[in-house]
């Protein structure tokens, strides 16, 4: 049922508080509610932190309990946690949420236009396939497969419109 456990070396994401949004490694458990925590590569000093503000990630590091910061840092860099984290969907969702919040009025307009264009293309293809299916009677196999294939094509074909304004935002 539970897959992620609080253990020495577990990398956790801090959800609220002064260090919100940073990653830390659990170094030791103090009592039922608090852990000794250290984030040398994410700018969090070694400190006690309540479990409530931590959210466990999939990453576990290998170091003995109460290891000093140097060891934690070595383990962190060896595992390349920062890169692995930014590759996870979790981190990408956070980033997308931040970008959306920063969108200006002009960006919102561009996104709206891009979405509209994309949906139109998809709808066009769908209608085409539906017409084909209805005309040629029962050919469910041929109708479905090209449909899925074409959807995958259309997403990159439509100039990556959603990603383009967001990429522009990232450049800004």
């Amino acid at each position, binding site marked *: 049922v539970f897959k992620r456990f609080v253990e020495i070396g577990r990398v956790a994401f801090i959800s609220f508080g002064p260090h919100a949004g940073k990653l830390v490694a659990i170094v030791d458990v103090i009592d039922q509610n608090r852990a000794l925590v250290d984030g040398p590569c994410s700018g969090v000093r070694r400190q006690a932190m309540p479990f409530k503000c931590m959210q466990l990630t999939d990453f576990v590091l290998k170091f003995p309990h109460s290891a000093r910061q140097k060891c934690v840092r070595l383990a962190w860099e060896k595992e390349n946690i920062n890169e692995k984290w930014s590759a996870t969907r979790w981190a990408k969702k956070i980033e997308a949420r931040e970008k959306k919040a920063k969108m200006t009025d*002009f960006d919102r*307009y561009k996104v709206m236009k891009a979405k509209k264009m994309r949906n139109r293309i998809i709808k066009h293809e769908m209608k085409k396939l539906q017409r084909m299916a209805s005309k040629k009677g029962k050919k469910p196999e041929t109708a479905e497969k090209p449909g899925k294939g074409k959807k995958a094509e259309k997403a990159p074909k439509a100039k990556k419109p959603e990603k383009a304004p967001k990429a522009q935002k990232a450049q800004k």
Partner: protein
Amino acid sequence: MAGEKAPAEKKPAKKKAGEKKAEQKPSQKAAGDKKKRVKKYHASRNPVLARGIGRYSRSAMYARKALYKRKYTAPETKIEKKKKEMPRATITKPVGGDKNGGSRVVKIRKMPRYYPTEDVPRKLLSHGKKPFCEHRRRLRSSITPGTVLILLTGRHRGKRVVFLKQLDTGLLLVTGPLVVNRVPLRRAHQKFVIATSTKIDLTGVKIPKHLTDSYFKKKRLRKPKHQEGEIFDTEKEKYELTEQRKADQKAVDSQILARIKKVPQLRGYLRSTFSLSNGVYPHKLVF
């Protein structure tokens, strides 16, 4: 002896002063010179014995200061000028009718026909109450020439518009441009506008100088001779487009449109209108 020495001292001092002034004359121009002559004050010629008591009496001081020489009369020419420049008090006006003697001599400035029973008391001095023309105009730092603004009130509400400059009364001069969203050169109030962070580069765009507040002000015709029923017709309810407005619009817009074309999708953005929908909260939006 002291008296003898004193005038002896005076004379060389005066001569020196005189020489200095003579030297100054050719070096400096007349206008500044006259003022500077007066400003060369001598120190007090009446040494103080005790506080409030001088060494010399009035008559001695008269002599020491050589006031017998310094007698000034008011320049006559000014009086003569004033006598000449008296404003006209009466005017002769022609009068009609027979045997009336053609004209009457009428006073221009007549005596008041009514004096109030009580005099109005003098108003106390107030401070800091300036008339509108002297008010300080402020402009939000987010609004700079070329900013895209969203109009919130008026017939063009929701439209996105380009800001040109702030006028003397503090209102913002704004244009569509006309071909993009049918907003002409127009004034907008700073408070009823959202400034977006989208800016168009308007360097080198010249806005004609005759576009001032009086150019945009609504004109009211009023002829007091008409009865009240007719006044409603003569007041311009319908705005009439003049050729000058068209020309100005074209002159300004042609410069701006060129710059709008350079930014992708900006033209479409200006054509669109702003609106809120479910789940969209203005306090959370970044403009």
